[in-house]
């Protein structure tokens, strides 16, 4: 059960990445964590910044917040994250920090961009998304058993 919760949290993190893109609803369904004051949590989000091979993912943030224990399970830079501070893993720039203080969120892609071979330990955007989702969805058996599940479970393959 805890794993499922954690999984949903992972998706929540993904959501954070694309937050600036979306005009989400204020609804925060279920008994999950609430967004910090002054910040609205999105309802569903279209994750489309990497849709070269697959169709964008229609991510249900509400559903994930309803099962997550804490926003920081997905959003490691979440303002209310107590478990991990960003600087424990890496330094963020002053610009990113100011933006964070203003909006409450930093989009994943503002730090996790294209893969940089000079920083092999730093996940690019695609890995940041997938690793976050997989921390729960692998345990749930959604990934890791069949290559077909990529297109069956999350994002349909683009036609042609």
């Amino acid at each position: 059960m805890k794993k499922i919760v954690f999984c949903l949290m992972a998706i929540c993190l993904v959501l954070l990445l694309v937050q600036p893109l979306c005009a989400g609803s204020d609804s925060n369904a279920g008994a999950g964590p609430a967004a910090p004051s002054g910040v609205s949590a999105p309802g569903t989000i279209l994750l489309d910044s990497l849709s070269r091979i697959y169709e964008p993912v229609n991510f249900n943030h509400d559903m994930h917040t309803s099962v997550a224990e804490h926003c920081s399970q997905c959003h490691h830079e979440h303002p209310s994250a107590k478990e991990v501070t960003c600087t424990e893993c890496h330094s963020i720039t002053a610009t990113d920090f100011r933006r964070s203080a203003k909006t409450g969120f930093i989009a994943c892609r503002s730090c996790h961009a294209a893969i940089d071979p000079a920083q092999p330990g730093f996940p690019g955007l695609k890995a940041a998304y997938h690793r976050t989702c997989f921390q729960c969805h692998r345990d749930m058996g959604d990934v890791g058993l069949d290559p077909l599940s990529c297109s069956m479970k999350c994002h349909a393959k683009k036609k042609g």
Partner: protein
Amino acid sequence: MSLDRRQFLKTVSVLTGSAVLGPYTSALASGEFHGWPDRYGMLTDFTECVGCRSCEKACNEVNHLPQPEVPFDDKSVFDTQRRPTAHAYTVVNRYENTGDPGKPIYRKVQCNHCNEPACASACPIHAYTKTPEGPVLYNENLCFGCRYCMIACPFYVPAYDYASAFEPRIVKCVMCYDRIREGKIPGCAEACPTQSVTFGKRSDLLKLAAEKIAKDPERYIDHIYGEREAGGTGWLYISGVPFEQLGFSTDLPEKPMVEEVKGFLSSVPVVFTVWPALFGSIYAASRHHEAYTREEMQHQSKEGGKEK
């Protein structure tokens, strides 16, 4: 299997006297490779791989290889352990996870871009090159199909293109050398959704691998495969289960295979010198036999004539 092969190489080296190579062999025997400290490599983290085969698909695309018979999202390929072929420079194999049966482990196989490649040492016409950038390349125009590299490679990598019987061609992963030169990253590393395959400077990757292991000793076994095996490889691996469970040879010497292969290589002139002699004597013997048979027949017919 690998033991047999190495045993074979050793035997050949003893028979043919690898001492011919003199100081070159002993310099290589140190097991330390200091050349090109900035060369690139790859790190595969088996704990991140989910067996999606995106890397195989990307490899197929960037190398313009023919479409596979079984589609890339078909898991039936996992029923057998595959090797790289002339039409698939990398393959992903599935292994049982004894610790957590619900989570099989996937292993991507391809050329390891050895620090001191045995294939290059075995090739009599120097069709292989270890580049300063890290990848081990081969020149298919030079290849004349002797397949010594296939025998020499401790990881069974070079594949033979049987489609072109009259134009022999050995093929293998080249770590997307052209893409690296263009400032891009290899196709598999770009495609992998989890960066389970990570491209970077080998020295950085070694540090990263050590950091990952130190940070999460429960997740990883304390071993970076390729750091020392066979003299060190450009492609490194970290895993949550012992490497022998994933089909890795864990009995490879730390000395570069070059040393043993050099013995094998020194057998090359033998092949070129002994074989003609051997075939020559077989030919001579058969001619002799023919002549003898002719004489015999003549003799018999004479005798038969007398009898009449």
